[in-house]
């Protein structure tokens, strides 16, 4: 509601004042509390959801209750998020966190570039996504190769590395968890794979 009208010239403002002048309407009998006072902003007002060019179904990213949400978007940006009135889980409602989902997606503190900290550095530096991915892949390989244990001295197979760990998953999609477990455990032999289930 804090939208500022653009600066306008004197003539324009005079014309607008004349247009919006309530006194003639009052003289015609309109109520000073109601119609006579109504201004252009009220005549043209619509909910901004109607500006959406895409509405998508989503699930609240906070707790595990699984409240359904509708995300309204325009030009590839969210314009609002609210409870899906169809859902038997939340019946359109949201808690304070869920109601802040739009604020989460558009938080001023949000990061959109890859940052890298060189050992011993006192600040981040920006790096490209591609560089980061390459560097991480090489670090994974190096650490894995240095720490992989194929079997115990008695021949019991281990096929694991204790040198790399992974934390997290409870905030991620099932499909993402599947890829993490499959690659980290099934592909690389990591056993320190944990998420928030114990936290």
């Amino acid at each position, binding site marked *: 509601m*804090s939208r500022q009208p653009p600066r306008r010239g004197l003539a324009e403002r005079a014309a607008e004042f004349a247009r919006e002048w309530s006194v003639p309407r009052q003289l015609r009998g309109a109520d000073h509390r*109601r119609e006579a006072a*109504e201004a252009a902003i009220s005549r043209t007002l619509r*909910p901004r959801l109607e500006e959406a060019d895409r509405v998508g179904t989503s699930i609240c990213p906070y707790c595990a209750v699984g409240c359904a949400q509708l995300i309204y978007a325009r030009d590839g940006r969210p314009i609002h998020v609210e409870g899906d*009135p169809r859902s*038997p889980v939340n019946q359109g409602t*949201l*808690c304070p966190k869920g109601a802040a989902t*739009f604020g989460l997606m558009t938080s001023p503190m949000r990061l959109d570039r890859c940052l890298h900290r060189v050992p011993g550095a006192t600040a981040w530096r920006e790096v490209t996504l591609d560089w980061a991915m390459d560097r991480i892949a090489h670090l994974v390989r190096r650490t894995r190769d240095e720490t992989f244990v194929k079997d115990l001295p008695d021949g019991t197979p281990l096929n694991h590395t204790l040198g790399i760990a992974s934390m997290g998953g409870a905030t991620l999609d099932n499909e993402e968890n599947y890829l993490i477990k499959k690659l980290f455990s099934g592909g690389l032999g990591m056993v320190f794979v944990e998420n928030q289930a114990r936290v």
Partner: protein
Amino acid sequence: MEGGLAHRRALDYADRDPRGPIPQEAEITTGRRVEPGRAYGFFTDTTLCIGCKACEVACKEWNQLPADHLGLTGHSYDNTGHLGAHTWRHVTFNEKIGKDGRRATTMPPYQSHWLMMSDVCKHCDPAPCLEACPTGALFRTEFESVVVQQDICNGCGYCVPACPFGVVELSVEDGKAHKCTLCYDRLKGGLEPACAKSCPTDSIRFGPVEELLEGAKARVARLHAQGQPAAYLYGAPGTPRATGGIGRLNAFFLLIERPEAYNLPPAPSRPAPRALPSILSGLAAVAGLAAAALLIGVGRR
């Protein structure tokens, strides 16, 4: 099994993505359509309030109001403090569990011993702020709500002291008066106001005031029967000492303690009628002095 059942109309939108807002979504979320010409409002039932502040967040996110960051107040869990230009829903917290160094042991049904209430603009009828507004920026909409039209308001600030509830405030950002609009834009689109829609426990109910009132009275009777004899309505027409000179509050409340415990004035009054006796005594004084001036012979050398 009856939990989570959907409104019949929700089934029209089952298994397909809505292309835009569902027409008259309010019918699905409240059972009532939103149509101009009827009085709509809120019935805030504090006995159902869990103090989650979803209403505050939903309001700010929808109306794109900036955060205030008051800091830790130490006033129970109320770090919002008061309604204002950027805060159109405010949940009050008042701890009552301790009594004379002991802790209460019996629990009446629903909310007790920690009072939580989602405060909001009362959309009074008649509305002191509206009556005070010299520009017509404040007006009564086709939904009987009271709205500040931002293209008109010039920040004179007269509505601020006019309000008996301390609701309206001038924004430090644009200098204009701001307060709850009952989500005027949403009502125009058939949507339930953001706070009421999000409310997890339906402590905030939105609907036609007459119907809300009926439900509220039944609720009070039920609470009395269930062992909460203190329940009463605040701001409903005809309830004793609730509305003073104000006919009714389109946003009214169910409380279980004195209004002061929720920071509500016990019997708010309409300020406008004070103007006439005031001006008459003033004019009498001036007239008297003018007469005296005549007698004194002001003007003569």
